[in-house]
């Protein structure tokens, strides 16, 4: 039986004004387990806390009921007081007689009566409280960043600068991501390579960073502070450690007809290749799908010309397992396929291109060395039509597009239009828009400059049909403000394709038990207050894997994710929330009901040996909750058909006792 002390706070007149505190203290004296009951002006003050501490000693109290303000206000305070008095902090219950009683009821008798009932419920609960100790788990002081675009690079750099080792896993042969493919960046028009490649070098040379390029995460086990991750290093048939990146193999390779992914297939590369000049790591990779040696065993030119002897046709995929304390997802985005939007004739004409292809066409390192030339005939286009929102903002039932706004298209289209007019003032540029969305620092000013200074024709309306005819692209579109249907004979049509999360994100989310929305963007723990954390503890989000973002936003989120990771890795041990679910193994029948409803993947099953009454042993499958992963929602307790699962701090019998006390 507990020895409970009841402390009723006046909160000055806040409580005492509507609740007869003395009467409450008096009434609760007679409740089972209560050995001491008193009231005081300000229980949270030092004097009030001293009163609690001395009473615990004097009456040998084992449990405390504080009738005061909301537990959301001072529960932590009074738990500390209990600890100071030598009690387990979880032997305290608060009866909220301020926010939910004195402040909402006006009459003293009513307030007092309700306060007594709330006090009784708290007493009933404390009677069943048990001391709880938060579990502790060690923290592996190493972070994993999945994805090596600007988001992953920035996160890794920030973590590494704080002194923690970081590994980057990138599935492509080089880090750099989409930003490496861009030409200039809005709204300042500095060149993407000029600001990105130094960062790529920094991260590659950082003593705390390891880069696993051409690699994928294949398995994740464990929980916050203690992840075990398997990384598959794909065979690149080149020894990374000795390849010097001289490029001799690339120039000599006889197979030169492989579509170049980096230029989105607008030119060709060889079967052994370095994606671009500033690639990190700058080593060659053999594309096994196109290498004659690997396919037929007859060639071997690259091996012959390689002075470093780095070519290794026998290389195999390699699996590495490593421990991490935190995981950052930075898997980025891709433009959606234009297959379903052939009213714009993307598949019918090479002169209908996506905006990312346009970036490559204007990039000095691109297929045309930065000259804006039509892919079909290499001529300079005189009329360019930009189409906004292709595949963005579609109906939720649409099988073609995405329901969301892709966010970056308005700005990069303004950039493309402006740069075109700047370099080629003889070119007519039309932008068809539904809305121009420019919320961002210096964004609207940028868009207005495109219109006012550079003379880009912005037309409110949408392109309905593109008809390639001879050398021209006949564009039929509406001009809603002028009430006209326009027919423009364009030379180039640029589609602002919607962006979607990288395809690898879905399987990764499953591995991480991190939740995703219906569009396969990772869900954040709280949309406003915890935007860089996944609801799964220890998993953090950086960049467009969480939602469409431009570069400034991506970088700031990357830094924020790094800060969260550093905060986690700085701890030696993690103290969990002790109010977690736990299963009574003797009652558990191993049905998996709890596992299915757990949003965190905290419940696993293990086969355990049990001694039966007849002294035989039997192996049964029972649920086991990982207290470091469980967040204490209690969903599993209700799903459990046998009543084996219970939630510490909010046990079935405790809540039942509260119900009884209130309904008495």
């Amino acid at each position, binding site marked *: 039986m507990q020895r409970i002390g009841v402390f009723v706070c006046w909160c000055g007149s806040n409580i005492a004004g509507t609740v007869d505190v003395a009467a409450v203290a008096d009434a609760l004296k007679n409740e089972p387990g209560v050995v001491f009951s008193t009231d005081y002006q300000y229980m949270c003050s030092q004097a009030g806390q001293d009163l609690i501490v001395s009473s615990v000693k004097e009456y040998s109290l084992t449990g405390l009921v504080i009738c005061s303000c*909301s*537990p*959301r206000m001072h529960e932590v305070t009074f738990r500390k007081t209990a600890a100071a008095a030598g009690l387990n902090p979880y032997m305290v219950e608060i009866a*909220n007689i*301020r*926010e*939910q*009683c004195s*402040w*909402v*009821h*006006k009459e003293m008798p*009513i*307030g007092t*009566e*309700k306060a007594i*009932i*709330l006090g009784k*419920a708290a007493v009933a609960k404390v009677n069943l409280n048990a001391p709880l100790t938060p579990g502790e788990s060690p923290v592996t002081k190493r972070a994993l960043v999945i994805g090596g675009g600007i988001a992953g690079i920035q996160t890794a750099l920030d973590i590494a600068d704080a002194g923690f080792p970081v590994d980057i896993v990138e599935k492509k042969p080089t880090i750099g991501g989409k930003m490496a493919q861009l030409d200039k960046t809005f709204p300042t028009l500095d060149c993407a390579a000029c600001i990105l490649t130094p960062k790529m070098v920094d991260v590659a040379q950082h003593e705390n960073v390891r880069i696993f390029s051409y690699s994928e995460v294949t398995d994740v086990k464990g929980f916050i502070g203690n992840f075990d991750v398997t990384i598959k290093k794909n065979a690149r048939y080149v020894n990374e450690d000795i390849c010097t990146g001289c490029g001799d193999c690339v120039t000599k390779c006889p197979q030169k007809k492989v579509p170049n992914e980096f230029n989105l297939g607008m030119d060709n590369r060889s079967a052994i290749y370095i994606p671009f000049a500033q690639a990190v790591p700058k080593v060659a990779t053999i594309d096994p799908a196109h290498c004659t040696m690997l396919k037929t065993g007859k060639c071997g030119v690259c091996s012959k010309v390689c002075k470093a002897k780095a070519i290794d046709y026998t290389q195999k995929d390699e699996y590495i397992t490593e421990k991490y304390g935190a995981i950052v997802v930075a898997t980025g985005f891709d433009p959606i396929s234009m297959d379903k939007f052939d009213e714009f004739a993307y598949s019918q004409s090479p002169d209908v291109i996506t905006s990312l292809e346009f970036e490559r066409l204007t990039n000095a390192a691109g297929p045309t060395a930065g000259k804006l030339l039509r892919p079909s005939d290499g001529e300079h286009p005189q009329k360019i039509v930009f189409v906004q929102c292709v595949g963005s903002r579609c109906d939720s039932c649409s099988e073609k597009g995405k329901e969301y706004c892709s966010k970056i298209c308005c700005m990069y289209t303004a950039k493309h239009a402006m740069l075109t007019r700047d370099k080629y003032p003889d070119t007519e540029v039309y932008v068809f828009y539904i809305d121009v969305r420019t919320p961002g620092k210096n964004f609207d000013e940028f868009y207005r400059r495109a219109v006012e200074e550079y003379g880009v024709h912005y037309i409110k309306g949408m392109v309905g049909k593109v008809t390639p005819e001879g050398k021209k692209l006949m564009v039929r579109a509406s001009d809603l403000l002028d009430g006209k249907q326009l027919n423009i004979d364009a030379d180039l049509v640029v589609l602002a394709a919607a962006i979607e999360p990288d395809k690898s994100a879905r399987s990764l989310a499953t591995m991480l038990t991190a*939740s995703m929305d219906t569009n396969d963007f990772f*869900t954040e723990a*709280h949309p406003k207050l915890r935007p860089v954390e996944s*609801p799964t503890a220890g998993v953090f989000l950086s960049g467009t894997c969480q939602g469409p973002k431009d570069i400034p936003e991506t970088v700031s989120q990357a830094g924020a994710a790094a800060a969260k990771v550093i905060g986690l890795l700085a701890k030696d041990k993690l103290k969990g929330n002790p*109010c977690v679910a736990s299963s009574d193994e003797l009652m558990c029948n191993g049905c998996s009901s709890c596992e299915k*409803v757990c*949003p965190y993947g905290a419940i696993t099953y293990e086969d355990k040996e049990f001694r039966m009454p007849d002294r035989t042993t039997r192996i049964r499958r029972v649920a086991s909750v990982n207290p470091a992963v469980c*967040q*204490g*929602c*209690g*969903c599993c*307790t*209700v*799903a459990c058909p046998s009543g084996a699962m219970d*939630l510490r701090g*909010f046990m*079935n019998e405790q*809540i*039942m006792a*509260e*119900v*009884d006390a*209130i*309904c*008495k």
Partner: protein
Amino acid sequence: MQVKEYKPLIVAFCCNWCSYAGADLAGNNRLNYPAEVKIIRVPCSCRVNPMFILRAFQRGADGVILCGCHPGDCHYTSGNYFTRRRMAMLFSMLDFLGIERERTRVEWVSAAEGAKFAATMTEFAEQVAALGENKRLEDLRCKK
């Protein structure tokens, strides 16, 4: 015997993150609602076992209301979706047992909706009061 004005007894389960905070906000703004409403704090609306609700009716509660975060806003990602389904089942069973639908309710109240909390409780209390005492499920052995 003294004839008292009939006041229903209402148990409100509130999730810690949204609805309990919403109730606190109602207090902060001094928004009155009937004292018959007694709040029990749970971590998440999905912690509420249907047994708790049956127990409340058995012990003489006249109405039970369950409050959680708005769908999609659950602190634990998906708890309130489970709540919604479980309660739909429970309420239809209670309906079958003759406990009027009006005695039970699930309501989404966010931490910012103090006014909604107070208004919901006032309205629910009136609705339950109109039905009168719950005798159907009350366990007479529990009667004093």
